C-alpha cells in the first residue's frame, strides 16, 4: 500500500512519519513515534482512553486517520508537563486520588486540560457532561470530578 509522508507538531516539536492511508493516528503516535501514554481501549470511540488534543480540540485518536493530523498540532499526555513542573491537572489527580489502574488517566488528563481551557470555571454538572466521553472503570468518577474542580481553582489563581 502506498505510503504518505506526513508531518505535524507533537507536544510542540515537529515530527514526521510515513504512514499507510488507513493508519490510525493512535498507532502512529504509539508505534511509529513510540509515545505510549496514549492508550487503546475499544476502537469505536466509546472509551476515550485514546483521547488526544488535535488543533485545539479533544479527539479520539483511534478513529482519526494519521493523515488527518498532517500539518496539525497534537498534544498528548507527554506534553502536559513543562520545565516548570507538572501541569495543574496532573497534580490535582494525585492530590484527589483521581486514578487507580492508570489506564484511562493520560487521556482523562488531556481531556481535562482541554475542557478547562474551554470552560475555566465549570459547575459539577458541566464537568460530568464535559468529561463524559472518557470512561473509567476504577474510580467511580467522584475523585476525578474533585480533581478537575481543584485544578480549575489552581489554574484560575495562576
Amino acid at each position, binding site marked *: 500500500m502506498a505510503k504518505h509522508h506526513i508531518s505535524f507538531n507533537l507536544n510542540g516539536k515537529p515530527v514526521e512519519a510515513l504512514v499507510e492511508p488507513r493508519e490510525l493516528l493512535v498507532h502512529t503516535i504509539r508505534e511509529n513515534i513510540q509515545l505510549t501514554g496514549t*492508550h487503546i481501549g475499544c476502537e469505536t470511540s*466509546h*472509551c476515550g482512553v485514546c483521547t488526544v488534543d488535535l488543533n485545539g480540540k479533544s479527539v479520539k485518536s483511534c478513529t482519526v486517520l494519521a493523515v488527518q493530523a498532517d500539518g496539525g498540532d497534537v498534544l498528548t*499526555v507527554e506534553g502536559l*508537563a513543562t520545565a516548570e513542573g*507538572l501541569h495543574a491537572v496532573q497534580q490535582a489527580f*494525585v492530590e484527589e486520588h483521581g486514578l487507580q489502574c*492508570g489506564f484511562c488517566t493520560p487521556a482523562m488528563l488531556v481531556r481535562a486540560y482541554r475542557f478547562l481551557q474551554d470552560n475555566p470555571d465549570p459547575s459539577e454538572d458541566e464537568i460530568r457532561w464535559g468529561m463524559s466521553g472518557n470512561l473509567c*472503570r476504577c474510580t467511580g468518577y467522584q475523585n476525578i470530578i474533585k480533581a478537575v474542580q481543584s485544578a480549575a481553582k489552581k489554574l484560575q489563581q495562576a
Partner: protein
Amino acid sequence: MDNANDANNAPEQDDPIKGVGCARKRKEDARFIQGKGNYVDDIKMPGMLFADMVRSPYAHARIKSINKEKALALPGVHAVLTADDLKPLNLHWMPTLAGDVQAVLADEKVHFQYQEVAVVVADNRYIAADAIELVEVEYEELPVLVDAHKAMDDDAPILREDLVGKMDGAHSKRVHDNHIFNWQAGDKDATDRVFEQAEVTVKQDMYYPRVHPSPLETCGCVASFDKVNEHLTVYITSQAPHVVRTVVSMLSGIPESKVRIVSPDIGGGFGNKVGVYPGYVVSIVASIVLGVPVKWVENRMEHLSTTAFARDYHMTGEIAADSDGRIKALRVNVLADHGAFDACADPSKFPAGLMHICTGSYDVPVAHLNVDGVYTNKAPGGVAYRCSFRVTEAVYVIERTMDVLAQKLGIDKAEIRRRNFIKAEQFPYQTALGWEIDSGDYHTALEKVLEACDYEGLRREQQEKREKGELMGIGLVTFTEIVGAGPTRNCDILGVGMFDSAEIRVHPTGSVIARMGTITQGQGHQTTYAQIIASELGIPSDEISIEEGDTDTAPYGLGTYGSRSTPVGGAATAVAARKIRAKAQKIAAHLLEVSEQDLEWDVDRFKVKGVPGQEKTMKEIAWAAYNDRPEGMEPGLEAVDYYDPPNFTYPFGTYLCVVDIDKYTGVTKVRRFYALDDCGTRINPMIIEGQIHGGLNEGFAVAMGQELPFDEQGNILGNTLMDYFIPTFVETPKWETDYTVTPSPHHPIGAKGVAESPHVGSIPTFTSAIVDAFSHLGTTHLDMPHNAFRLWQHIRELGLDKRTG
C-alpha cells in the same frame, strides 16, 4: 457523609513514617500521570511479530476444512496455526482451573461464537487483520443450546463430544452429557423438615444475568522464547503471574526455572485477568516455532465475547420463618450456566465458589444449597467481576429473599434484618453452611446508616409520594462478605494452596525493598504494603520500595483477586516485618549491652526500659546488621513469610439507596447512595474510599444496565461498547461513604479486605430500591438490568403510566 478528612484518618503530613491509617498519596501515580506506565501493549521487542485470531461466526458447528493458503501468501504473514498444528505438541487442548479442559484452537468443532479457530502471525497488526480475512473456514452448523434450563433435556444437543460417556466429573457424578457438576452444602433433610412445618415460607426465582468485567485494558501478552538459552519470557495481563508460570511449565514441558512471567502495569482486572486464555498459549507456541517475540492483544469485541464473563446464575431463594419474621431455615437452588468449557477460576474444592456464604448476616439455624452446573454454547468463565468467588450471587439471593419475606409479613425491611442479625456477642459464629464468621457488629452498622439517612423520614416521604402516584424506592442491604482465600486446608488452585507471600530486605542504610506474590491492578499496593512495613519497622514508607509481578524476583504467591491481597499478602507482609523486628531486637540488645527483655519498641526504635536516652533506631540497627552483630548471628536483615491464613475474613456493611423512577419513561434517578463498610483495620482511608467508589460504580453498572444476552442461534448481543453499558460521568450517582471498624481477630493487623464489598453489596441494594418503588403494588422482585425500557414495561403492566385529568 464524606469521611476522607475525619480525625480518624490521618492526613499524610501528620504521620512522619506514613504508616497504617494514614491517607498517604499513591506512589504509583507519578508514572501514570506522565504517560510512563508500562502496560503490555507498550512493550516492544526487537523483531516482534503480531498475532491475531480467526474466530467462529457460529455458536455450534463442525469445522469441515480450513484453508490457509491465501493468508500465507500475503506478504508479511509468517504463520497460520490451527488445532492440527498444535496437536503434535499436545497443546490443542489445555486444562482449565476448574478441572475441565478447553480447546486452545477449535478442534474439529466450535462450541461458542467467536471461539478461536486459527491464529495468524504477521509483521504488524494491520497485516494480521488483513490475513485473518483470508483464512477460509468451512463450517457445518449444529443445533445450538443457549437456554441453561434446557441443557439437561433428553433431546438437548450434546455439546462436549470429548466428554461423552465420561460421567465422573471433576466435582461429582454427571447425570447428563451437558451436566458439569452437582454441588451441595448444608443439611437437606433437616432443612426440608423445617420448611414442611414452618408458619411462613417464601420463595423467589431470580436470574443474575451474564455480565462482563470489561476493564479498559483488554487482555494481551508478549511471548519471547530465547532459543539459545531455552528460556521463555511472557509479559502478560495477569492477576496471577506465578500460577500462570506453573501452568505454562506444565503445558510446555519447559522447566519452571526457565519460564519467567511478568505482569507489567495492568489496566484494570476485576477478575477478568485470572485465567489462562488461548491467545496466551498460541503466542507462546508461535514464539517458540518462529524464534521471535510475538505480541497478541485483543480488541474490545473479542474481549467481551470470549474472556471471563461473570454470573449467569439462575437462582431460587426460599426462607422458612415464624410469623414474627425470624428465620427458621434457608433453601437455595442454583442452575449455573458455565458456557462451553468449565473455566471458572474457583478454589478447586468449590465449584460454586463461596456461594455457601448465602446465609448472609443472619442467624439461620439450618440451610441447604444445591448447585448444578451445565454446559451451553457460550464463552467459558463465570467467576469474575469483583465477586469474591460468587459472593455477589450469594448476597443477592439472601438479600432479595429477605426483602420478599419482609414484604409478605408486612414487616419493615430494616426491622426484619434487626430481628435476624447474628448478634455481636455470637462471634465467632458457625454458619449452617460451614463457615466460621470471625467477627462482626451488624446492628451498629445498620443503625448508623438509618440515622445518617433519616430512614423514618424517607419512609414518610415515600408514603406522601405514593399518595400522589409517584414512584420512589428505598433499597437496604446488610451484607456479609467472605474474602481472603484462603486457608490451604480447603483452598487451592490446581493443587497449589492459596497462601501468599512477602519478602522484605532492609539495606544497610535502612531503606527497604520488599516483594510480594500478589499483583496490583489499581489497588495501590506500592503505597499500602509500604505503610504496613513502615508501621511494623518504623522506617518511613517513602523509603520502602514495593515490587510485584515478576516471577523471577518475587516470591511465589497466588495473586490478586477475591479481595485477598490485604487479608493474605498483607498478613504475610506484617509477619515478615515482625521477623525482621525480632532479629533487630537481638541486635539492639547486643549494641546496648542489655538483654532482649529489657527493651521496648517505640515507633522506630528499641529503648532500654526505664533508662532514658539508651536506645537504638531501626536505621542504626540496620547498619549494625551488616557489621556489628551478636556472635553467631548471620549477617543481613531480611525475612520471608509464606502466610497460610487460619480463616477467611468477613467484611460487612450496610448500604442504603434512594431512587425516583419516572413513571412515563422508566428512567431511574439515583437520588442517594450511602455505603457503610467495615473492613476492619483501615490501612489507607483515601485508597479505601477510592476502592469503594469504584466498586459501587461497577455495581451500579451491573444492576442498571449490563447484560450479555444471546439470540436463539447463539449470537452474542451487546459485545461492543455501543451496546454494553459502562456508566459515564453523567449516569454515575454521587457516592457517600461511611465506616465502622471491627478488626479481624486472626489477621496480624486486623485488616479484612475491601475492594469487592461495594460491588457485592451495592447490586442487591439497587434492586431492593427499584422493587421497593413498586412494592405497594404487589411487586416482589424484578430481574436486572433495571434499565429504563424494562422498567417502563413493568410500569405499563401495572398501568401506572395512564395520564389522568
